[in-house]
């Protein structure tokens, strides 16, 4: 364990720790462009130069490993001068078009310039100009003038995806990032290079010129694109989600997320149900609760509780599912539970999971082993046999494709009752007698459990826009009250505590859907 002194403070570090890492541990931020903790270290930008006593020249902190007795200065006059000089070099041909650059406001070059350079240009020659919008692939656009050639994007494609699409071509002031002629930057994670780019050289086609970043507000959220549940920053402006960015989570997605996941935000604003409806007429929540309670009572009397099916959505949060189960079992009194959600898609061996629902494990963990919701194909079968006459669906997703899907939709038409409690309408909205609009995960707090059993909370980002959409759990509590079997929840935090207790209890003993922090199976 070498010991070193950084800016007068002593620190013990593991062998192999770099000066930059050791300084960070002490709270000294060494400015850097090319270094990224998940990539190899080329030490090409020279922004991180620091003074190491007894070394003749300044050394790159990102690459230099701490040795015993090393004395380092990261903020002294010589170092600050070097940073200024490095920035001046980097800016020689930089267009400084910050006013029209999407990166402005979250640009390392801009920030470091203000911290260390902050002089007007001394250059008296004309800058080298380059192409301003070169499409590298379907999602990513490159600006050659802004590029500082740190090669983070190149290394990402070489080391993380292994797809090797990008490279530096030419040299000197002609250098640029390119793909091989006729090939594209086209992998399932390509937009990660946009996050990696420390400047505005790489922009995503989706976010280009859409919103100034200083207008964005950010919530810690979770991607709902598949069962991986990548941690994300969900960034919004004016009650609309503008983009998703991966949020570092060593247990789930590290620094990355897939391109398809980034686009899941679009769904949050599409095809939304905005007002409670009965037979197409819109009502307030108190009215709709009253009428729905009547209709449900009538149906129960008419067809019997065991002809009522309840579909649990793996798109819903654990909290909502916890109350949903209570509602189905204790209020409706049906034990015919089915698993809804989206149909499976393609997965890969990195992050993308074939299950396109964020909370299947959450659904499972709301039930004791052995009483978990039956697969949706079973529901199809039960509808065909006529043993089900009424359907209460959470979520409008149908986990079937092709003919089975068509068969399901036409069977639903003949039901005595379809209640659709969902954020989006989809193809079932037309057949639902009762529609109860609910919030998406962006509009509420909640918890998802991913494919590996990692539970993650997500925060509320926005309010539903011009909409009466409610949290699922509140809808259940409201209906229960009218049905005379009150569910005892008024506050989210109480319900969350009960939910975690239930999850804990349900995950005991050997269980494939391992719960978070579940004790290891005994013996």
């Amino acid at each position, binding site marked *: 364990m070498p010991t070193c002194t950084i800016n007068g403070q002593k620190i013990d570090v593991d062998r192999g720790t770099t000066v930059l890492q050791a300084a960070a541990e002490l709270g000294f931020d060494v400015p850097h462009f090319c270094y990224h903790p998940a990539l190899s270290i080329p030490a090409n930008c020279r922004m991180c130069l620091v003074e190491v006593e007894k070394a003749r020249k300044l050394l790159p902190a990102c690459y230099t490993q701490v040795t015993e007795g090393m004395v380092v200065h990261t903020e002294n006059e010589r170092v600050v001068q070097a940073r200024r000089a490095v920035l001046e070099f980097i800016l020689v041909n930089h267009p400084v078009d910050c006013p029209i650059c999407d990166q402005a406001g979250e640009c390392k070059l801009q920030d470091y310039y203000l911290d260390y350079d902050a002089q007007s240009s001394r250059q008296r020659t004309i800058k080298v100009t380059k192409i301003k919008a070169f499409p590298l692939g379907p999602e990513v656009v490159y600006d050659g003038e802004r590029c500082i050639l740190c090669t983070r994007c190149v290394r990402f494609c070489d080391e993380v995806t292994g797809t*090797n*699409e*990008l*490279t*530096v*071509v*030419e*040299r000197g002031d002609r250098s640029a990032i*390119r*793909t*091989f*002629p*006729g*090939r594209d930057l086209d992998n399932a994670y390509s937009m990660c290079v946009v996050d990696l780019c420390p400047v505005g050289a790489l922009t995503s086609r989706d976010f280009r010129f859409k919103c100034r970043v200083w207008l964005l507000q950010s919530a810690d959220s979770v991607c709902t694109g598949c069962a991986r549940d990548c941690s994300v920053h969900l960034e919004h402006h004016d009650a609309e989600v503008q983009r998703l960015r991966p949020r570092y989570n060593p247990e789930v997605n590290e620094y990355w997320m897939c391109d398809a996941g980034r686009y899941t935000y679009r769904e949050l604003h599409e095809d939304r149900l905005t007002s409670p409806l009965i037979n197409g007429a819109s009502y307030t929540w108190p009215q709709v609760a009253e009428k729905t309670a009547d209709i449900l009572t009538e149906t129960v009397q008419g067809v019997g509780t065991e002809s009522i099916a309840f579909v649990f959505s793996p798109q819903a949060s654990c909290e909502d599912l916890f109350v949903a189960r209570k509602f189905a079992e204790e209020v409706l009194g049906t034990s015919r539970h089915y698993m809804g959600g989206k149909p499976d898609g393609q997965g890969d061996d990195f992050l993308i999971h074939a299950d396109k629902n964020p909370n299947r494990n959450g659904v499972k963990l709301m039930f004791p082993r052995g009483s978990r919701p039956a697969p949706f194909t079973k529901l199809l079968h039960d509808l065909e046999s006529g043993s089900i006459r009424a359907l209460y669906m959470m979520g409008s997703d149908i986990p079937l494709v092709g003919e089975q899907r068509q068969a399901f939709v036409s069977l639903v038409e003949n039901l005595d009752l379809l209640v659709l409690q969902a954020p989006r309408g989809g193809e079932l909205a037309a057949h639902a007698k009762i529609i109860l609009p609910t919030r998406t995960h962006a509009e509420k707090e909640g918890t998802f459990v991913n494919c590996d059993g990692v539970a993650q909370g997500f925060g509320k980002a926005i309010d539903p826009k011009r909409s009466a959409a409610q949290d699922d759990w509140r809808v259940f509590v409201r209906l229960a009250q009218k049905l005379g079997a009150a569910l005892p929840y008024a506050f989210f935090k109480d319900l969350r505590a009960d939910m975690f207790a239930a999850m804990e209890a349900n995950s005991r003993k050997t269980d494939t859907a391992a719960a978070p922090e579940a004790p290891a199976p005994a013996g």
Partner: protein
Amino acid sequence: MPALEFSESAEKQFLNILSRYPEGHRRAALLPTLHLAQKEFGYMSVDAMEYVATRLELPPSKVLHVATFYTMYNKSRVGQRHVQVCKSISCAVMKAYSLVEYLEDKLGVVAGETTADGKFTLSEVECLAVCGYAPALQCNDDYHIHLGQPAEDGSWPKVDALLQEWGWEA
């Protein structure tokens, strides 16, 4: 599959190049293989780079990287004789710039161009590393040094002799 393929003799040379590097280090053979490909196919066409990538089992982007970094790999087709005049410091002192102009006049092209008959390409290059023998030029693989100085009338006798040797007709 790339449209190109090494001829029988080039293939032999290629295998010989490969044999110089340890197993599993095909990437190390990139520079000589690119030279071989340039000889074989004329210049660094997309097909040529793709072919080299396939033969060395490298991502094509990495071949592009190296082929575009070095100016000695031609990015477009050159004439039968590629005349490269050094214009770095020692040669410049020895009137290399006038030499380039002289050749431009004679060949009827400006530096960087190829004659209409496809026989000559004229280029300016950086130091050929024979500064002590300036002015110097390189034609294909041959060096021509001590090119002397222009005569009274502005002609370069040694260069004229070279042009004649190369079959250049006025």
